[in-house]
Each structure stands twice: as C-alpha cells, then as structure tokens.
C-alpha cells in the first residue's frame, strides 16, 4: 500500500521536490506541474482515448466471437466438433511470445502496423472466453431451444434471443476481465504500435519512461491516471468481480 501512496504523493510534487531529503510524504508545495507536463509533452489524452477505444472494441468482439463459437460447440451437432474443440483448447498452451514474430511479419505485410485493427483483432480468438461460455450454454436446458424452434425461430434468433440473455452473468464477468486484460496489455501493443498517436497507456508510459527516466513526478502522474478507470470499474463491480477474476484469470 505504501508504494501506492508514494505514487500519489510524488505526482503532486515539482521536479525539485523529488530530490529533497528527508523525503516529504505530503508535498510541502503541491502542484499540478506533473499532470500538465504529461499532457503537453506527450499526446497523453490521445493515449487515454486509444486505450478506451481499443479495450471496448476488444471486449465487444471477444464476447461476440466467443459466444457464437460457444453456442455452436454447446448446442449444435456438427462433425468433428469434439476434435475441433480440443484443437481450440490445445492452442491455449502456445505462448504469445512464439507467435509474436510471425504475427509481426503478417501484420506488416498487411500494412496493419500502427492501426487499431492489429491490436484489436486477436480478440476474435479468446479460448478461455469460449471455454467459459461453453460451460454456461451447456447448462441451458434443451427444452428452451426446442420451444424456440417450435415457435419458428432460426438458429440466429435462438442465439440472440434465448441463449445470450441467459448468459448475461458470465458475459458480465468476461467483460470486466477482458477489458482489464486489454487495458493493461503490454507485449502485443508494444510490437504493433510504434506511432505516438496510436499508443495505448502502457506503451505511452513505457515510452515516457525511456525519455524522462528521472522525472518521476511525471511518470507517477501518468501511472495514476492509467490506473483510475480500472479501479473505478472494480469498486463499482466488486461483487461480480470477486468471482470473475478467479474464473477468468487465465489468459486465453
């Protein structure tokens, strides 16, 4: 906890006050200098926007793609379903670092470096989300689906109007964990985004760290800003969050 308070305190210090001994836990002359600097020296407001846009899109796409796949695996009979599901699960063992270089090559060939697309698109394939949703959808009684069929509903209508509403608790959980994963992700956006105007907050912070390595007041201000949205989400969603992190903790 102390490091966190130290961060808040530092972010309100001027550059000179960083280097006073004994250290000041409560800044004697609190200033917003660091906050002003972080926004003027770097397109930081833009980084906040990028992070929001990317994390929200990433989450929405994950939910859509995963729930569709999960519906197919859980309720539609098709050839090789078990085999395919095993391939999906097995792919979880492949570390991101192995696919990083080839994916950089592919994205580069497609001209997608420094685009939002490159950062968001891996959301199409989040095995853990699929796995969790398969479990949920399997627990939905088939009678519900039969009833929908008798009423003349096609598969898509069934998926949208019967299955999805029953998955809301799981989806809420996944939304929070996926958003957080995407918001805090480092390695993938680090490789995909090199243009300051496209950077997400963690990449922006690591760039600032490279340039202003000793101006800790600026770095702490930036770090604090990057943490606030997640902490707010957590405090509001604490109840569902507690369970969700345990079940959603493995990265897909």
């Amino acid at each position, binding site marked *: 906890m102390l490091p966190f308070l130290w961060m808040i305190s530092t972010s309100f210090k001027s550059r000179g006050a960083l280097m006073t001994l004994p*250290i000041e836990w409560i800044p004697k002359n609190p200033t917003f200098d660091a906050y002003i600097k972080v926004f003027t020296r770097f397109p930081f407001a833009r980084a906040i926007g990028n992070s929001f846009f990317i994390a929200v899109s990433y989450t929405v796409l994950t939910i859509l793609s995963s729930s569709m796949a999960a519906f197919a695996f859980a309720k539609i009979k098709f050839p090789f379903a078990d085999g395919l599901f095993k*391939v999906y699960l097995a792919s979880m063992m492949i570390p991101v670092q192995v696919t990083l270089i080839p994916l950089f090559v592919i994205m580069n060939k497609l001209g997608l470096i420094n685009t939002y697309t490159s950062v968001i*698109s891996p959301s*199409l394939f989040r095995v853990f989300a699929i796995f969790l949703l398969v479990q949920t959808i399997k627990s939905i009684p088939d009678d519900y689906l039969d009833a929908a069929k008798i009423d003349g509903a096609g598969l898509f209508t069934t998926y949208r109007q019967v299955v999805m509403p029953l998955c809301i608790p799981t989806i809420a959980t996944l939304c929070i964990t996926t958003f957080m994963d995407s918001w805090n992700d480092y390695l993938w956006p680090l490789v995909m985004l090199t243009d300051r105007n496209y950077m997400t907050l963690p990449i922006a912070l690591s760039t600032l760290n490279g340039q202003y390595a000793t101006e800790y007041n600026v*770095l702490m201000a930036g770090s604090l800003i*990057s943490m606030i949205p997640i902490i707010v989400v957590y405090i509001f969603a604490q109840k569902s969050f507690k369970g969700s992190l345990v079940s959603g*903790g493995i990265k897909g």
Partner: protein
Amino acid sequence: MEKRKNGLKNQTSAVPFLLPSFKGLIIFSLLPIVISFFLSLTDWNGIDSLNLNVFLKDHFIGFQNYVKILTGGEFFRVLGNTLYFIVLYIPLMLIFSLLIAWLMNKNYKGVSLFRILTYIPVLSSWIAASLIWKWVLAPKFGIANNMLSIFGISGPAWLQSEQWAMPSIVLVSVWKDTGFFGLILLSGLQGIDKTYYEAAAIDGANSWQQFWKITLPLLSPSIFFVLIISLINSFQLFPQVMIMTDGGPNGATQVMVERIYKYGFKYYEMGYASAFSWLLFVIIFALTNLQMKMQKNWVHYGA
C-alpha cells in the same frame, strides 16, 4: 419420435457461428506457429524479401540457430536468471498469498476495504507497477532506502546493483501478484467444510495442527493451480524487466522473453529469436505436462 440426446442437429448451420473464432485460430495460432518454426530454421533479419525462391537459398540454415543457442553460454545464463527468479518468487508469493487469503477469510470490520487495498496492485498494469517500484527503489530518494536508513541500514542500489536487481524484480512481482493468487486461495479456503475443523477441535487439535492436517491438504488443488500458473508466468517474465532494468545491470536480469524481444525487434535477428521462442515453448509445454502428471500423485481432492 426420435429421442435426441442434446443439441440442435444441423450439419452446416454451425459454420457461421464458428467462422470468426476459426479465422482467429488460423491467423493468430496455427499459421504463426508454423511460420515461427520455419523462421527458426533461417537466419532471416526481418528485412530481406520473403520471396520463397530466393529466400530458401539465401537464408535456410537448418537447425543451426538451435545449435548456436544450446551450445552458447547465453541461453543457460538467461535460464539461470529465470530459475533464480523462480526460487525467490514462488515461495514468497505463496506465503504472502496464503496469509492474505487467511486474513480475507475472517470476518472483521474493514475486510472489504482490505480486499480493495490488496487488489490495487492486481488492477494496475505491469507498467504502472514497475514504474512505481522503480521510484520506490531509487537509491537515494526512494522510500525503500529511506525507510531502511531509519533502522540504520544503508540500502543497496537495488536496480543498479548486479546482486540486487533480480531480487528487486521479485519484489515487484510478489507485490503485484499476491492479491490475485490470494483471491484464488481464498475461494479454496471458503470451499472447505467447517465441520472438519469442529471435529478436529473436539479431538483436541490445535490451530497449527489444523492448518497442516486439514487446511493444507484440502487447499492443495488451489495451491497446485497457483503453482502451475505462477511457474508458467515466471518463464514469461517481461514488462517488469523492460521497465525497471532493461535486462541489466550487466545482463543480471536478462530473461527469455526479453531476449526474444530484443533479438527480434532490436537486433533484427528474427530467425534466431524464433528459435529462442521455440525453446521457451518447449519448456512451457514440458512444465504443463509434468505438472499434470504430478497432480495425480500428490494433490488431495476433498470429499
């Protein structure tokens, strides 16, 4: 009427539902893994043309990258650094997460505030956490050494010291991960039937005995899960290192992913980096399998 076991029978209608994730599987998993292995057999620098006709003739070098990695000293030095990290990190992390789980499992005023507080490190990004600790551990003006000096200890230069750089990385990792693993262990603790403790208390077992004979065995599935995840994470150690030490001083905190990233994107030795990443893959694969087997032998699943 034919009795259906479950599900809607339909041969082709699954296709549109599976298409997005299947595309993802191909693009983000299967295709890259094949390309990665292929690149690991080349000395490609990331720049030269990928035209297959010329490419094979110019760049194909068979298993030379692997030979170079496994016979050179760097790989084992980096592996040693990782093992050093693991030896310090896992016991510390386990002890603290057990402690946190135990504290969160009690009913007292302010327990929910305690939960939020232990959770802040988990919610923050690795980058923010690493920046905070870099400043905490700053040799002269950081709080770590200033607090040590109260007790008359003059603290080391932490990140600038070859000896203390890796322990510093361990420190931030424990700080960041303990809340998360504590939560997993907490849900394990909450799953233990209270009647075991009541029975043990009647038989005169003290709380220390209760911990060793009841809590630990019944918690073993959760502990085991934490162990697997944290071990795999340890081999993928990266952001902390990049932000806090950049692999230094003098290579003391170089680890596998840091090497893969540097070789691939800083030194443009994409072939070499790919081979390195395959060795990482092999290690993680072996670990997962080994632990799956061990799980059968010593994990106690409660009734």
